[in-house]
C-alpha cells in the first residue's frame, strides 16, 4: 500500500505536463535485433512493418503516415530499458515487444513509471509475445495490452484438441524451461490434468537454452512411462528435445507451444511428424486470403509470431479509425480506451480485449505436423494442419486476483 501512496506522490509532483506532441503517431519496436534471440525479434519487426504499411496505404493516421522506429534491445532487459529511454526521447507513442517475457516485464514497468511521471504524455505498450502470467497479474496496468495467448490458454486448447484426436493418453510428462513462462506452463499443465483425464507422471524444469544434450531428459521421460510430453520450450530447447526423443525411438506425442519457429521443422526432420502445437493462428485454419496477401508482400507465408503481431496492429488500426485528433496532438489515453473496445476479426475468429486485465480474449488454434502439407515449413514437404480451433470464450480463464488495474480518470 505504501508503494501506491509513494507513486501517487510522485505523479502529483511530476513536473512535465507537456501535452504537445509531434503530429505523426510513432510506433517503437524494442526488439532483440542482435544477439542470441535475433531470429525471433526480426520476425516481430517484419510483421509490424507489414501491418503499418497497410494502415499507411489506407491513409495513415491524423493526416500523416504512422512512423515505425526499430530499437535493438540487444536481447536483454538492460538494453531494453536503455532503448525505452531513447524511444521516449524520440517521442514514441506506442511501444511493441514480443520476444521475451523478461523484457516485456521491463518495458511494462518502464511504461507505467513513464506515465506516472508524465501525465498527459502517456505511452502504450502492445505486448505481442510476452506470455508470462505476471504481465496481466502482478504487473498488470492500463497501458499494457497483451495480444497473444498465455500458458493456460495454450495448454487447455492442446488438451482438448489432443484428447478429441485420441492422442492425449493418460500419462503426461511436463518439461519446461525454468523461468516465469516455463513455470506458468508447468502449473497450467498440472491444473489441466483433472479435466483432461490424465496424470502428470513427472515434471521437470531445466535451464533456459543452455543444455546441449537432451538425451538424459529423454531417458527420464522413458522411465516415467509417459505417452505424451507437454512443453512450452522454444528455440534450441524444443529442437534438441524433439531430436533426442526421435533418436531414441521413443514413441511419445508432443504438445508444444512454439513448434512453428522457423528452422524447427527442417532441423527436427521426420521426428516432428504427428506432434501438436497450440498457437494464435494457423494458415490452414482461417481463410487463405490472409496468408496469400502476406506472401505476396513479404515472399513467405506468415508463421510463428507474425500472425499475432499482425492482428495486434490490425486491432490498433481499427481503434485509430474511430479517432480524429484533427492533425493536432495525439492523445494516447484515448487510443488505449478505443483499443479496449475493438473487436478484431482475425481469420480464425474475433479478438477482444478484456478490460479488467487487458488480456485479449482470442481463439487458439491447435495444429498437427503432417506430410505433404498445404503450407510447407522450412522448404520441407512437412507443415502444419489445423485440427481444431478453440473459441475465445472457451480458451479464456478468469482474471488473476493479483491484477489491480488503475484506470485513467
Amino acid at each position, binding site marked *: 500500500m505504501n508503494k501506491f501512496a*509513494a507513486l501517487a506522490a510522485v505523479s502529483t509532483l511530476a513536473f512535465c505536463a507537456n501535452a504537445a506532441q509531434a503530429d505523426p503517431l510513432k510506433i517503437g519496436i524494442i526488439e532483440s535485433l542482435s544477439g542470441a534471440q535475433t531470429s525471433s525479434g526480426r520476425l516481430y519487426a517484419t510483421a509490424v512493418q507489414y501491418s503499418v504499411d497497410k494502415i499507411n496505404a489506407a491513409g495513415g493516421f491524423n493526416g500523416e503516415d504512422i512512423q515505425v522506429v526499430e530499437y535493438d534491445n540487444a536481447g*536483454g532487459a538492460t538494453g531494453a530499458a536503455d532503448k525505452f529511454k531513447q524511444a521516449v526521447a*524520440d517521442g514514441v507513442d506506442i511501444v511493441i515487444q514480443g520476444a521475451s517475457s523478461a523484457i516485456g516485464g521491463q518495458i511494462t514497468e518502464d511504461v507505467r513509471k513513464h506515465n506516472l511521471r508524465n501525465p498527459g504524455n502517456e505511452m502504450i505498450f502492445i505486448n505481442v509475445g510476452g506470455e508470462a502470467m505476471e504481465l496481466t497479474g502482478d504487473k498488470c496496468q492500463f497501458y499494457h495490452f497483451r495480444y497473444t495467448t498465455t500458458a493456460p490458454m495454450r495448454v487447455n486448447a492442446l488438451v482438448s484438441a489432443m484428447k478429441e484426436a485420441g492422442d492425449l493418453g493418460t500419462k503426461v510428462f511436463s518439461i519446461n524451461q525454468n523461468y*516465469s513462462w516455463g513455470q506458468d506452463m508447468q502449473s497450467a499443465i498440472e491444473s489441466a490434468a483433472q479435466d483432461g483425464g490424465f496424470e502428470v507422471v513427472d515434471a521437470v524444469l531445466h535451464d533456459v537454452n543452455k543444455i546441449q544434450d537432451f538425451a538424459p531428459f529423454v531417458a527420464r521421460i522413458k522411465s516415467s512411462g509417459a505417452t505424451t510430453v507437454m512443453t512450452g520450450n522454444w528455440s534450441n530447447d524444443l529442437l534438441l528435445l524433439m531430436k533426442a526423443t526421435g533418436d531414441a525411438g521413443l514413441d511419445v506425442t508432443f504438445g508444444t507451444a512454439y513448434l512453428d519457429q522457423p528452422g524447427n521443422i527442417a532441423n527436427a526432420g521426420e521426428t516432428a511428424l504427428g506432434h501438436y502445437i497450440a498457437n494464435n493462428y494457423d494458415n490452414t485454419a482461417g481463410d487463405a486470403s490472409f496468408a496469400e496477401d502476406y506472401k505476396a508482400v513479404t515472399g513467405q507465408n506468415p508463421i510463428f509470431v507474425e500472425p499475432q503481431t499482425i492482428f495486434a496492429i490490425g486491432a490498433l488500426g481499427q481503434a485509430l479509425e474511430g479517432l480524429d485528433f484533427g492533425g493536432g496532438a495525439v492523445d494516447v489515453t484515448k487510443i488505449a480506451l478505443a483499443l479496449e473496445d475493438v473487436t478484431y476479426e482475425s481469420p480464425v475468429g474475433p479478438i477482444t480485449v478484456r478490460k479488467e486485465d487487458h488480456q485479449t480474449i482470442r481463439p487458439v488454434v491447435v495444429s498437427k505436423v503432417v506430410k505433404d502439407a498445404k503450407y510447407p515449413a522450412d522448404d520441407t514437404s512437412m507443415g502444419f494442419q489445423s485440427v481444431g480451433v478453440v473459441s475465445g470464450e472457451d480458451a479464456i480463464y478468469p482474471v488473476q486476483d493479483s491484477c489491480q488495474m488503475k484506470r485513467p480518470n
Partner: protein
Amino acid sequence: MASMRNLILMAAVLAVLLIVPPFLGLGWQNALVNILIASLFALAFNLLSGQAGLLSFGHAAYFGMGAFATLHLMLAVEDGLGFPTPLLPLAGALAGLVVGLVAGYFSTMRSGVYFALVTLAFAELFHSLTPHLQGLFGGESGISSMRMPWQGIIFGSVLEVYYLTLGWVMLSILVLWAYTRTPFGRLTLAIRDNEQRVRFLGYNAHTAKMVIFAISAMFTGVAGALQAISNETANYALFGSQISAQVVLQTFVGGATIFFGPVVGAVSFTLFAYLVSDLTRSWLFYQGLIFVLVMLYAPAGIGGVVQHHMRSLRRADWTGLAKPYALAALGALLVGSAVIYLTETVAVLFGEEYSVNLRNAAGAYPGYHLFGLSWSPVSPLTWLVPLVLAGVGAVLLFKVRGTIAAKWEAMGRPETESTKAPDAAKLKGGAA
C-alpha cells in the same frame, strides 16, 4: 607545467559536463548517463587489470551485485525507509566491496591465466545460479523499483539522474585518481611490475592483491548501482559474460596503461553503440573489427597513441608529420569505406529480403538499394568500387607507414615507450 595543463583540461571537461546537458535532447542525456557509467566501470576494472596487472574476465559479477543491492535498497525506500535517494550507490559500493573481498581472496590465490579463469568461473557461477534464486534476484524477469523523491527533488527526469550520476562518477574518479598517488597505489603498480620484489620487501602480496581486487569491485559496484538507479531495474543478465567482455574491450581499446585510457574506450564504445546500433545490424561486427585492429596496431590503445603524441608535443616536427598523417587518415578512410561497403553488401545479398526477391526474380539477380543508391550484384561496378577503394587505401597506408615511422625515428623515442604491455610479465601462465 604538464599537470597544470591537465588540470585546466579537466576543469574544462567538467564545466562542459555541468553546463551543456540541460540544452541537449533526452536521447543525448541518456547517452551521457550511459557514458558516465561505462567510464566508471572501465576505470574500476582497470585498477585491477591495468594497474595491478590482474586481468579479470568476470567483472560483471560485481557490477551486477552492486545493481541488485541498490535495487533492494530502493525497494526498501519505496516501502518507507528514510534513506536519501542520492546516497543509494553506497549500497552498491558495499555489495561490491563485500563480494569483491570474498571473490578476491580466492581469485588472487592464482595469477596469470589462472586468475582470469577463476574470475570467469565466479561470474559464470553467479550467472547460472542467480536466476534460480527467485527471492533475491527475481528470476528471469529480475526486480524493479522506482526512484523516490528526496528533499523536493523528484528524480523523475533524465537530467536529475544525469546530475546524480555525474556527481558519483566524478567523486569516484577523483578517489581512484588519488588512490594512484597513495603509497598503496604505488604498491599496486609494483605488484604488477615485480611481485616477487614486493614480497621480498616484506609486503604480503596476497593480502594486497585481495584489497586491490575488493576496491576495484567496490567501484564497479558503484557503477552497477548507478545503472540500477538509471534503469530502475536489474535482472540476472547483468552477470552475463557480455557485460564482462564489454568492459575488457573498452578498457583495452582505450588503453590500460594510462589512467584515463579506459574512459576513452568507454566513451567511444558507448557513443559507437548509441550512434550505430540502430543504423546497421552489423554493428557488433564493426566493434569486433575495431577491437582487433587496435590490439594489432596500437597495443596500448587509443589512449596510448594520444599519450605518445602528447609527450612529444614540443619535440615533434608537426609540420613534417602533417602531410603523412593526412595521407594515412585518407588511406584508413578509403579502406574503412571499402570494408563497410562490402559488409553491408553481404548483409543485403545474404539477407532474407534479398533471397525472397531472388526467388521472385526467377533466375535473374535483382538489384538492391544501399547508401541511397541502386546497385546490381552482376554489374562489375558493384565490385570495382570496394576493390578500388581498398586498393588505393592500402597502397596509401603502406607507403605512408614507412614515412611516419622514419620521421618518429628521426625525432628519437620519448622517454618511456607507451606500447609496452604492463601485464606481459604477469600472464605467462602458471599458477604461483
